[in-house]
Structure formats: C-alpha cells, structure tokens
C-alpha cells in the first residue's frame, strides 16, 4: 500500500533538513510546532545538538494558538528571545501545524523583522516532504538573504555546498574535505558545517562551488546565475565509501542521496572495468545526473522489487535496509545515510 511502512522508519523530514542547513550559522532557529517536531529534530535528526549548544527553540504552539491563528504570540515570543539571545538572524521553520492552519510566513517574516531588527528567514516546510526539500528551500533562502554582495573572486577558494550531517552522514567530513583541499593548495569553505554566516555572505568570492548533495543544486544554480560562480556535483570523499573488492563486470546497485550515489558509481567504475552500476534514491533526483536505468524510490515495495529482481552482485545501501531483502545473497555494503537511518558513520 502506498505510504505504508513495515520495515523502515520514516526518513528525515523537510523541517529537519532546513534546520540542518542553518544549525551552525548562529541564528535563533524557531521551529513552529507544539514541541514534538523540535523533539524529533533535536533528539534525533541533528547529531550536532548533542555536542554543542545551539539556539534552537520550539514555538510551543498550543491548540488554541492554532485554532485562533495567534501569530502575534509567536512574534512576541521571538521578540522576547531576540532580546535575550545574541544572534545574527532568526529563522522560522514550518511544520505540519502551520501547514494545516495556513500560516502566512511572509507576514510572519515582516512582523518579526519589524519588531526585532534581525534579518528573518522563513522556510515553509510542512513535515510531509523529505529532508532534501527542506534543505533546498533553506539554502535558497539563506543565500538569497545573505550573499548579496558581488566580491572579487579569490583563486583557490572553493565553496562546498550541501554539507549537512543528513547528507554526508559523517560529522568529521568537513575537516577531511578541508584537509584534502589544503593538500592541493586550495581552501575549502564548507557552508553550514564548519564555516559560518560570514562565509555565506562572502559566497561570491569563491572560484567555484562543489555540490555534494542534490538538495544544494538549486542554490548552486542561483549562485551561478547571480555571481557567475561555476559549480560541479560530486563528493570529494567518495573514495573512502567504496571498499576494496573486485567490481569488474559486476552488477551494482547504489542507494543514497543522488550526488553521493553518483560519486560512488564513478569510483566503482574507476576500480572495476565493465561494472554496471545503477543508482537509486529515496530522495529527489536531478535529471542532469541521471543515467539510463537509475531509479527513484518511493515505497518499500519499490526497493524490494528493484533489489530482488535485477540480479545485483553488490548493493550499497544503508544497513537498516538490509533486512528488507533477506533473500539477497550478494555483497551488501553499508553505505550509511543519516537521513534514512539516523545514524552517522
């Protein structure tokens, strides 16, 4: 049945994706919910929350706030927080409750900006889409809101777009990427994971952007259109995701977010001549990265059918998916995806 899950818990929702993009940027993040969504984001979907304090707040909506549409109360609460907490901006993140009552985010933004004198971002997530949709919205809002000035391009400065724990499933990934680029005499700027709001403001100064997640492609396109910054999609650490084995002539399925999956495919092809690699993803797929035979997954049955009826020799997927295909007798490679299982490498 469409929408019914028997094996997998729901994937990271759009609101978690939006928070993930903004988490390290020093803003007041207000999740417009009753408490449960914030609990999901903080207690599960944001692994950095356990390591460092961040100004993530729940709006603490109650039934009568929703029924009566008391947005003014939310504005008052945000004003109160802005007086108490030092922040460079405020962000209001949507959830199912404001989606049901039809909250006007633009009006909220205007009211809050007027009263707090802080730049306010609003992300109209609804908890029903997946994390990549929330990330996409947040990236565009963020860069449109803060990367306004056209600065001279600094040769050797590379922007890394799409770095969130949801996408790369590795809290040490930004350090590793920065180190890798440093070894080549380049400087990597990992937006939102290691580098903060000041770097976002200077986004026009990078030589090019490397996009590590499909969710950031729209933002990269925006930066190209606005500042002329070229971009390419790929995950610089893909080599460490592919274990040593003989891939020559093998039939391989890779299930991940599209950019990482595509980078794993490229790495496998490098290592094994004639490997036939299919990419599948539970999340959005960009048509420019698609190859013939790539599959967009929606329900559990889609994956089970794909995995069981195509004679794959190797499957790269999150370990939580292993039990869905007990009959698979090939090699299952753990390709952890935080947005799927909530686990980091």
């Amino acid at each position, binding site marked *: 049945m469409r929408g019914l899950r028997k094996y997998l818990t729901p994937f990271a929702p759009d609101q978690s994706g939006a928070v993930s993009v903004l988490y390290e940027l020093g803003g007041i993040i207000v999740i417009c919910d009753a*408490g449960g969504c914030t609990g999901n984001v903080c*207690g599960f979907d944001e692994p950095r929350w356990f390591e460092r304090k961040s100004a993530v707040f729940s709006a603490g909506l109650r039934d009568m706030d929703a029924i009566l549409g008391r947005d003014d109360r939310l504005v008052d*609460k945000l004003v*109160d927080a802005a007086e108490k907490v030092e922040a460079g901006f405020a962000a209001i993140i949507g959830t199912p*409750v404001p989606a049901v009552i039809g909250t006007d985010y633009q009006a909220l933004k205007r009211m809050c900006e007027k009263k707090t004198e802080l730049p306010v971002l609003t992300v109209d997530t609804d908890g029903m889409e997946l994390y990549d949709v929330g990330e996409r919205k947040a990236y565009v809002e963020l860069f449109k809101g803060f990367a306004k000035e056209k600065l001279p391009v600094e040769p050797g400065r590379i922007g890394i777009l799409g770095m969130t724990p949801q996408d790369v499933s590795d809290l040490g990934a930004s350090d590793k990427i920065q180190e890798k680029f440093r070894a080549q005499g380049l400087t990597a700027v990992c937006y939102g994971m290691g580098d903060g709001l000041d770097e976002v403001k200077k986004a026009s100064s990078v030589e090019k952007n490397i996009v590590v997640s499909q969710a950031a492609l729209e933002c990269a396109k925006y930066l190209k259109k606005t500042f002329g910054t070229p971009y390419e999609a790929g995950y610089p650490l893909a080599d460490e995701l592919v274990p040593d084995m003989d891939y020559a002539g093998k039939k391989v399925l890779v299930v991940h977010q599209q950019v990482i999956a595509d980078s794993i495919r490229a790495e496998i092809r490098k290592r094994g001549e004639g490997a036939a690699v299919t990419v599948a993803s539970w999340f959005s797929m960009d048509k420019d990265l698609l190859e013939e035979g790539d599959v967009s997954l929606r329900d559990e049955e889609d994956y089970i059918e794909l995995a069981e009826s195509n004679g794959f020799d190797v499957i790269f997927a999150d370990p939580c998916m292993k039990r869905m295909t007990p009959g698979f007798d090939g090699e299952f490679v753990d390709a952890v995806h935080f947005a799927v299982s909530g686990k980091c490498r």
Partner: protein
Amino acid sequence: MKKEAYFATVEDLARGGLEAIPSQMISGKHLIYSSPATLAFNSPGAEGFGVKRAGLAVPDSIMLIVAPGCCGRNTSLISSMPEYNDRFFYLMMDETDIVTGRHLKKIPKAVKEICDCCEKKPSVVMICITCVDALLGTDMERVCRKAEEKVDIPVRPCYMYALTREGRKPPMVHVRQSLYSLLEPQKKKGNVVNLLGFFSPLVDDCELYELLHQAGVKTVHEISRCRDYEEYQTMSQANFNLVLHPEARFAAEDFHDRLKIPFIELRRLYQMDKIENQYRALGQVLGVDFDQKKYKAEALEAVEQFREDCPDAVFAVGECMNGDPFELGLALVRYGFKVPEIYGTITAENFVYIRNLAKLSPNTRVFSNMEPTMLYYDPVSSGVNITIGKDAGYYHQDQPNAVWNQDRQPYGYAGVRRLFETLTATVKGEKE
C-alpha cells in the same frame, strides 16, 4: 544583553505565590529552549515512556502511526530496543491526505495488511495519530471500529497531540486511558489490586508489595508485568486500584465508572516521614496497621552511609528523573544536605514543596529548563558537587551525576534507599 540564565529563588517564588509565577517560568510565555533537558518534557514521543512506547504497554500489541513522516521519524530509537522490534508500522500522510482526509479510508486496509504480515497475531492494534488529526477533528474512534471489522481484534486510538500538552487531558494522560479501555468487566476478587501509573514495574524490592500482602492482597497487577493479553484482562478483577502517578488519575476514574473499581491515590515521595504518613493513611483505609520499621530503617541507613561518604554534598536536582524535583530537593534539605539549584517546572501540585523549601533553604535557585536564557547557563559559581537527573548532569558535566531516570520505578522507602545507594556509588565513581 546579560547572557545569564534566568532564575528565581524559592523565597521569591514563595513570596509571590502561585498567582505571581514569573513569566520566565511559564512555558506558554516564551519560546521553548531545546536542551537535552527539555526533550522528554516537551516532546510527547521523544524520550523514555513517551506516547509511542507507552501505547505498546499492552502485551503483544502493535502500533500503526498515522501521521506526517516527521512525527514517526525518531521512533527508530524505540524500535531498536528488542522488545519493540517489529511492533511499529507507519502510514505516512501527505498534503492531499490533509486536504481530503483520504488517509482515514486507508487505515482499515493498512491495519489488515500489517496484521497479516505479523508472525504472531497481535492482541491489539493501537492507532497513533498526531497534531494534524487533532486540528482536522478526526473521529478516530469511528475509524478504529471500521478497522476492527477487518481484523477481528481490538483497534484503539492513541493520541500523540503535542498541541494539548498543557490542556485538561495531555497526551500522557490520554494514553493511559486508552491502554485500560480494553479491559472487559469481570467478577471482582477481594484480594487483587492494580498498580496504575507507570509503564514499567516498580523495583522488585519495593516494600509496597509486602505491605499489600500484609493487608491480605494476594495478587498485585501492573500492566508491565502482564505476560500476555489474557493476564492483562485479569486487571479488571481488581478490588481496588492504587494510582501511583497523577497522570493515571483519569484512567482510574474510567476504571471506576466503567468497571466499578475504586481507586486510592498515592504519591512518589522522598521525604521519609511523608512516606510513613502516606502508608499509615493507606493502612487506615484498608483496616491494617502497616509495620514499616524495617523498610524505613534500611532507607535511613542508606542516607547515613551516603552522608558518611559524602558529608559535603551540594546538590543540583533536575526534573528529568524519577521524582518531583522540588519534593526531592526538599527531602535532601531536610536530610541536612545543601541544594543550591533546582531545574524544574512549577505546577500547582508542587508549589507546596517550594513553600516549604523557602523556609529551610530560601536561597535555593530555581531555573526553568525551557527558558531561552538557559542557553547561557554557567555552572561555575554554583558550588554544586553532585547532581541528580539527566538535565542536572547536562548542566554540570564535570560533576558526578546520578541520572536516576531508569525504567524500573523507584518508589517508597525502597526508592529512597536505592537513590542514596546510587548516590554513594556515583561519588565512588561506579556506574548506575
């Protein structure tokens, strides 16, 4: 900007009274800060026995969470525990479902499908719905009846409405009612008692079991000790219910109305004289004079042992633990220890402890875990050298911490004894 965490002393709070609680201490008046301390309190499904876990307290039950994906996301934290493996299922809602309500038509079919795929036939299917359906005004009772026709086992709603957390019937009250609503009337047995309130058993050495036996009780039922659905059904044979947690009061009233089983309410306390009085009162109702000396002496001994090992204990007490932070703070002060800081949520029920604390330890500072300025909490000048509760441990990461948040419920003298034994072990560097 001061960048300091807001607090009020118990003296200030007591002077102002219940009507003048500072707005910083009222959760509806400000944004709610998300620290690990807030999580369990603010999110009804997030931690410990939230709605999802509690909803599966009936033996061999399964749960279908019908909600937007975000509401079920963190369930894998629970479903990774062996006892919940293969007991959670999800029917994810999308925007069209919200607009048209079509998800409601899918529920009976989904219930049938998940029942068919279970190796063992479940005893009951709990349908967990969330804020969205609260706003849509969904009549889930009716949908459950439709689903029952398909599977021939009970199907019950379970409301994880975070929106109603501060209402008359918050989610954790509702879920207790749902759990016991499956009981059918049976012939009463004079020597059977139910303990209501928790989703896991009391500690095995809790004196309450022995005291009840002194009163002639032969069988003490707790939902979490029921091995199967048949045993769970025998809870309706009880002569009376003991309500050990105030959130079970509504469920107890239901018992009374539907099954004609009366209830007596007891509190979890850490002040031994109050425990003694409470048991004495219970004994009077039951017509027995409980012999409490042995249990009290053991608890006292544990307190003294801790005092010997840690004579200069200075406590911070949090609310993420098995107890009321103000009552426990008061107990510690009355045992002669210092309690400079408490992190808690003030309610009408616990204000009495604040008043008493104000007389004995007026400078005790009360912080609200949920207040935005807790982002700036600084433990340096507090003088605290030992903490109780997960939240207190979070704020004082350099001090020994008794998490005291275990599933097995501490209660009565056994609770006091075990707490001080744990504290002694904690200062000696042993793990809980």
